[in-house]
């Protein structure tokens, strides 16, 4: 077993522990304040609707309704940000492939796309559940959700296109070109909630309490570790696959 693979497995375990830790911290130590409460005489953040009047505890301060579902934040956002990051890495490898025409960049780009896709699906599932809990609907065509959904479709298209091309090198070139075009959607999806008014909360715009920030950062680091570990495992698997093919060819000759 290679050194890189060992590190990957260790990172996977640490990442799992960190995200679990963050999950419990989200319930035990994170304050709801900042996300959960607002001062009534201030303009309301559209992201968090007020709780029904009967549930409001004191004058001047109001609880926002979705404060428990807000706990999804601690794993939804880290997964989403990791997906953007891994997609960007895939696009960088795609660009490198087009410039150098070296197969190893294509393999890396493809595997990064796969990893990013796993994270996109995870983001979608947690996101849909949060939408249901907080907005009362399963899906809403608002800018962030729409652009993210399009990004997922583009990723699926990437794999469909690759698989429908017979020639290996042509598949790699088409994949790289399509990855680059599709990637344009990632920064768009990331900044769109800051450009167009929407229901989707904007993280870091209103500031975050330290007790909220710590579990968030822990979860983020954990998710990135898991993402890296998955990526390395897939790369190892792919190189094993290549070696098998090579050996088979040698045996046939």
């Amino acid at each position, binding site marked *: 077993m290679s050194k890189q693979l060992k590190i990957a497995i260790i990172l996977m375990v640490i990442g799992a522990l960190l995200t679990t830790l963050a999950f419990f911290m989200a319930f035990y130590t994170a304050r709801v304040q900042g996300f959960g409460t607002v001062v009534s005489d201030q303009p309301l953040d559209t992201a968090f609707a007020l709780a029904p009047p009967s549930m409001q505890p004191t004058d001047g301060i109001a609880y926002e309704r979705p404060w428990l579902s807000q706990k999804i934040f601690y794993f939804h956002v880290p997964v989403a940000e990791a997906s953007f990051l891994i997609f960007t890495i895939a696009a960088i490898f795609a660009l490198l492939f087009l410039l150098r*025409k070296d*197969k*190893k960049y294509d*393999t890396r780009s493809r595997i990064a796309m796969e990893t990013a896709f796993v994270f996109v699906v995870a983001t979608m599932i947690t996101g849909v559940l949060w939408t249901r809990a907080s907005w009362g609907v399963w899906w809403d065509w608002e800018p962030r959700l729409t652009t993210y959904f399009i990004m997922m479709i583009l990723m699926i298209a990437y794999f469909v296109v690759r698989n429908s091309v017979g020639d*290996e*090198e042509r598949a*790699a070139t088409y994949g790289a070109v399509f990855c680059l075009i599709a990637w344009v959607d990632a920064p768009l999806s990331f900044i769109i909630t800051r450009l167009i008014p929407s229901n989707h909360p904007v993280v870091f715009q209103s500031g975050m309490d330290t007790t909220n920030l710590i579990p968030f950062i822990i979860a983020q680091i954990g998710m990135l570790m898991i993402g890296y570990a998955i990526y390395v495992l897939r790369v190892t698997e792919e190189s094993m696959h*290549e070696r098998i093919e*090579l050996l088979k060819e040698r045996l046939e000759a």
Partner: protein
Amino acid sequence: MASTENKDRIAEDVLALDVAHLTRKFGVRKALDDVTFQLEQHRFLSIFGPNGAGKTTLLRILATLTAPSQGSDVTVLGFDVVKDAFALREHIGLISHNPLLYPDLTAEENLRFFAQLYGITGADARIDELLDAVELTHRKLDIVRTFSRGMTQRLSLARTLLPRPELIFLDEPYSGLDPHASDILDALIDGIRDKHTFVMVSHDLERGLELCSHALILARGKVVLFEDKETLDSDLFRATYRETVGLGVS
């Protein structure tokens, strides 16, 4: 035909093909592996080899349609196939088993389209001259879809000769042709072989051997044999061919 084209003439002493350490690989798989050979102008090179030996890849690299891998040094008519690809394209032509003609255009429209791509002025006279040479003047205004296989191939030859290429690639030009059409193609090639360099990929051993001045056998992306026909030991050649291609030679 005296010409005052402002397309650069190729000097006589320039090598038609100067291939050094040509490698083409994707990952660990090598389509071409360290191919090295040289060919002077006005020669006829036949490339033989089994399926998947890299013949077509070699031809496509020489014709600037595919890029070689890094470390290769391929010069055609003095032009580097990667850096000077654009300039080189004015000097090369291709006859393939595909006609490379638009079936819904007439013979004349097809030729005129390619004349425009090459920026040939005074194309009318050139088109008439070429149609006459391939004996298709009477079908000038007919659409190519109505042509027989042999006529299409003749028109294809006219299209190739239109920009007066110095080097012509032949990619399995006989496949799908009946014996009569093959003979016409042979005669046409024979008429211009003094002034042109030919590079042919073919499965037809007899015809390839008869036409060529140099023979090259590729197997698994490597050059197994490269010889001038003058010095070529026919028996040795056939033995090598049999061994690599694995087909019986009559």
